[in-house]
């Protein structure tokens, strides 16, 4: 009895007991779902009754008979690459401007960051109204400044719809990346610039010779988060295009979600959706791995 009491009183026991519930929760909600997907990926299961083991049948189907899934994966990559090509340079440029010693810049820092705090689903909704085909505000603006005479239907072809997705996504994310870059810039010691200006380095040269190498390690992390984040895009697509027109703007996450839950006229196919989820997870891991390998050099500047 006495020993038990001292166990409860011991620091280590108490520390472990404090962490334990969260450790269990973490295993339940981070790892168990992956095991679940691994288990059902090799079965035929519609969400009720028994799951029948079908070996690699789901994977054969993904690779041989589901061009729509591959289209959604390609869309994910194209959308991510396209929007990051705009978003990252833009965020860096804004950060450089905000890093200048001018009055009132904190106002811009706070207001330009604001889109980041809005729900992705709500952003999709707002942009679908802004760009709506006939009476949308963007159409009205373009008409009033004489750029177009007839309203544009922004959502009737795949690439127009993808463009709007890209615009909405850049709008949603440039603020956070801007702040990340601003933090990186503020970590550069001023003396380095002072030395450089004595040597006569100015403007663009200074940017490529000092600023960029100095922020390279943080740049690597920022870009990784931006890439992974945009490959996992889901809410925005669901609320903005929901895959329209004709399922051509589906991204991997929305496509798989719809198979799990039987949305957009799809059947509920847990087994098949799990197989696609597994392939997508491996793809995500592969992208991260390749990215980290390819950008290893950037991190070395840190030393």
């Amino acid at each position, binding site marked *: 009895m006495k020993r038990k009491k001292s166990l409860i009183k011991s620091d*280590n026991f*108490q*520390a472990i007991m*404090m*962490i334990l519930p*969260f*450790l269990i*929760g*973490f295993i*339940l*909600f*981070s790892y168990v*779902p*992956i095991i*679940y997907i691994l288990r059902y990926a090799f079965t035929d299961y519609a969400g009720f009754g028994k799951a029948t083991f079908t070996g690699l049948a789901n994977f054969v189907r993904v690779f041989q008979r589901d061009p729509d899934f591959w289209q959604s994966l390609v869309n994910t990559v194209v959308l991510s690459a396209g929007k990051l090509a705009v978003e990252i340079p833009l965020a860096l440029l804004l950060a450089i*401007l905000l890093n200048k010693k*001018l009055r009132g*810049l904190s106002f*811009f*820092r*706070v*207001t*330009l*960051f*604001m*889109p980041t*705090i*809005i*729900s*992705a*689903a709500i952003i999709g*909704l*707002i*942009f679908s*109204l802004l760009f709506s085909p*006939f*009476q949308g*505000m963007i159409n*009205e603006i373009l008409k009033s400044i004489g750029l177009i005479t007839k309203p544009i239907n922004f959502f009737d072809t795949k690439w127009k719809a993808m463009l709007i997705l890209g615009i909405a996504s850049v*709008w949603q994310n440039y603020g*956070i990346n801007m*702040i*990340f870059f601003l*933090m990186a810039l503020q970590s550069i010691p001023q003396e380095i610039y002072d030395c450089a200006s004595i040597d006569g380095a100015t403007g663009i040269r200074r940017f490529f010779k000092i600023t960029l190498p100095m922020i390279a390690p*943080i740049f690597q*992390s*920022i870009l990784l*988060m931006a890439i992974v984040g945009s490959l*996992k895009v*889901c*809410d925005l697509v669901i609320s903005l295009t929901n895959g329209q027109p004709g399922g051509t703007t589906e991204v991997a*996450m*929305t496509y798989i*979600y719809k198979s799990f*839950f039987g949305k957009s006229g799809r059947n509920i196919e847990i087994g098949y*959706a799990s197989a696609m*989820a597994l392939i997508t*997870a491996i793809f*995500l*891991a592969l992208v991260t791995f390749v990215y980290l390998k390819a950008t290893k050099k950037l991190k070395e500047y840190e030393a």
Partner: protein
Amino acid sequence: MSMGKLKRILRNSAVYIFLSAFFVISFFPVFFTFMSSFKSNMEILTTGNRLIPKAFVVENYIKAWKMADFSIYTKNSVFLAVFCVLGAVMSSTICGYAFSRGKFKGKEIVFYFMVSSMFVSLGTLTLYPLLMEMKAVHLNKSLWGVIIIRVFGMNVTNLFIARGYITSIPSEIDEAAKIDGCSFVGIYRRIIFPLCKPLIATVAILAFRSAWNDYMLPMVFTMTDTKRMPLVVGVMHLKSSGAAASAWNLMLAGTVISLVPMIVIYIAFNRFFISGMTAGAVKG
């Protein structure tokens, strides 16, 4: 000299003009939503739309609140946010404290094991398994399921911030308390937790943001029961239901109802937002 000064003024004005353009870009969609929420449905759906409504129809809000269940959605959102915030504050301070001050074997391994979830988080891919786990304990049709997943699923960013913050509190303080006979949990309760106010503010705001804005997770938990939907889910539900075309005005009113608390909190606490959301990045 005066040439140089002129050049500088020109360059600085160019900076201000460029930033102002982005201020407009950042603000316009929100302002547009706000204005549109006062338009009649007719006005929203006809061409020749202007930014400022012809007449401010406050009725949109009354209708959305009373007839379109937005009062219920708001209540649900508040419920979800309150428990997610409380849970996040508890979980991050407790784990941050135990990982910072605890000396048990394997502490580092467990910590990095938990942090590794950053790399295995698969977003929407795990929605269905999560729902099934909660179904096993009959919480698949309630926001409690969402709360449990959010709180016990641990947010790695919060964990990092909390451990860092608590490590920065001098350990002499708890040594002294220990001599006075305070237990490990007691030190957390009486000494560390009260010293964590800035940490709590940051974690609370981040948790509020994600709970208030979350869409997919609460959506799959409330699919069959519209009375349990939080605001964002409710707005989206209205959009995808057949009534969408005839209810844009209500949807926009609902959107604004969901936007306003977020924006007010952002304006009041933007420093915590910005520092909190970037803290995870530095460590990652």
